[in-house]
């Protein structure tokens, strides 16, 4: 397998985006993934950033969601309040494409704090738009390395709400991509392993997951990265944040 963990996340995450969808793209790996999708199977993917940028096609991977390159290739840039109130709140965003520090079995995401809020072990960046995106996007897809500390039984802090206990929220989290496998949420709103990356075994996934993990009846194998995917990944990384 010629690709690192983040690259694997990005490539498999990219495959979950369908051409023509409107995706609100978080910073980091989701940004990498969305830009891979746009260059391959989803040229009409509408990339939207919480900075207000609508339908960008950046020539190289932007470091920040407010970078001039994003603006220059965009269809338009909305005031942030208009984006959140008139586009996100009204259901016009198909996919919220997010990362985070922790996720739990209900898809609650933490990007705020490790430890307690009042006396943090580690203070992180906080919600930004993530909680709003998780509230309103028609489905949320999360990309996250499968580190045991990131998959606890309960997150330290609910930044972006997942499925409530006991029921599936229709526009809640839909998929989690990790460097070990791919998850969906079942009819109860509980995270469920549906596929493994090549060479990963089920016990390893369970060993790195902080709760008794549900597994789909027919566990599939995720097809390995294609040469085109690897090339798009490499090209985007080569140019990330670079001044031309």
């Amino acid at each position, binding site marked *: 397998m010629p690709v690192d963990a983040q690259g694997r996340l990005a490539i498999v995450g990219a495959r979950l985006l369908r051409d023509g969808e409107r995706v609100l793209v978080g910073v980091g790996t989701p940004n990498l993934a969305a830009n891979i999708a746009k260059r391959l199977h989803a040229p009409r993917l509408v990339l939207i950033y919480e900075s207000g940028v609508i339908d960008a096609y950046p020539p190289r991977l932007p470091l920040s969601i407010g970078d001039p390159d994003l603006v220059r290739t965009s269809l338009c840039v909305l005031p942030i309040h208009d984006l959140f109130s008139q586009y996100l709140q009204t259901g016009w965003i198909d996919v919220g494409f997010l990362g985070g520090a922790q996720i739990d079995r209900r898809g609650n995401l933490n990007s705020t704090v490790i430890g307690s809020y009042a006396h*943090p072990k580690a*203070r*992180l960046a906080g919600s930004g738009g993530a909680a709003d995106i998780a509230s309103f996007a028609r489905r949320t897809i999360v990309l996250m390395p499968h580190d045991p500390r990131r998959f606890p039984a309960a997150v330290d802090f609910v*930044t*972006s709400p997942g499925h409530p206990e006991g029921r599936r929220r229709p526009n809640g989290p839909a998929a989690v991509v990790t460097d070990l496998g791919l998850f969906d949420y079942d009819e109860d709103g509980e995270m469920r392993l549906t596929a493994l990356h090549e060479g990963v075994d089920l016990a390893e996934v369970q060993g790195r997951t902080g709760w008794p993990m549900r597994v789909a009846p027919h566990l599939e194998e995720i097809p390995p990265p294609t040469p085109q995917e690897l090339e798009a990944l490499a090209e985007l990384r080569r140019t990330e944040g670079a001044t031309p």
Partner: protein
Amino acid sequence: MTRFLPLEDAVREYVHDGDVLYLAGFTHLIPFAFGHEIIRQGLQHLTLCRATPDLLYDQMLAAGVADRVVFSYAGNPGVGNLPVFRRVVEAGEIGIEEYTHFELVARLAAGAAGLPFWPLRSLENDLSLRRPRPKVRSPFGDEEVPVVPALNPDVTLLHAHAADEDGNIYARGLLGEVREAALAARLVIASVEEVLPASELRKDRDHLLLPGFRVTNVSLAPWGAHPSYVHGLYDRDTTFYTEWDALARDPASVAAWLEQFVYGVKDRDDYLRQLPQDRLAALKEAARRAG
């Protein structure tokens, strides 16, 4: 009538210890020149509001000007965290009041419209549960809608492309929450890359950010947003944004940086002379080429 005090005098005149400030700008147009001047003048006990505190508030926190930060995303986007912010919050040295982006810009929208609250439907999270976030019952249909309170800063400080002699302010590119932050404030003080005659600027009505009667003071400050950017004039100094992540993990390095680039310089021109001139030229050239 808009005044035209130099930037140092504007800060002295309009910014006071204990004020609630909003240094506006979302990635773009961040008013670094104002922030540095506030540090140099040794202001104290400020409440610093910004959706995205960014490197500027990291620097201001390191300098000890603030008691409190009101914010929604305290990261260095694409790079990581804000090391100083993280350190002072983990140590409990400052108070924080935290929102989602939508909640924070809705607070500004309420402030800009002279309303006491703004309704929005984002779901509860552990932030809104801590606060709490009240609901109002809609008189139309049977529904409760959460609301956030208006935010009305004492002073909003912003940077823009240009102003004319009447204090009309022009900006283009990504505006984020700049306009609402300005309209919500009691006073607006602006720095600009250029002051140009109204006869040149008035044609460009699509880029009017604020009419002069909403602007308290305009100061000339070329490169006033560096290391942030001014669309079409100079690009974002991403190198500095990346370097800050390492530099700011060490309090001594931050102190040294502040000494060299803020306390140790007289004004913005002096700051610019400390920077590698070829880097500035490259940022300008990149913006020019991209158009």
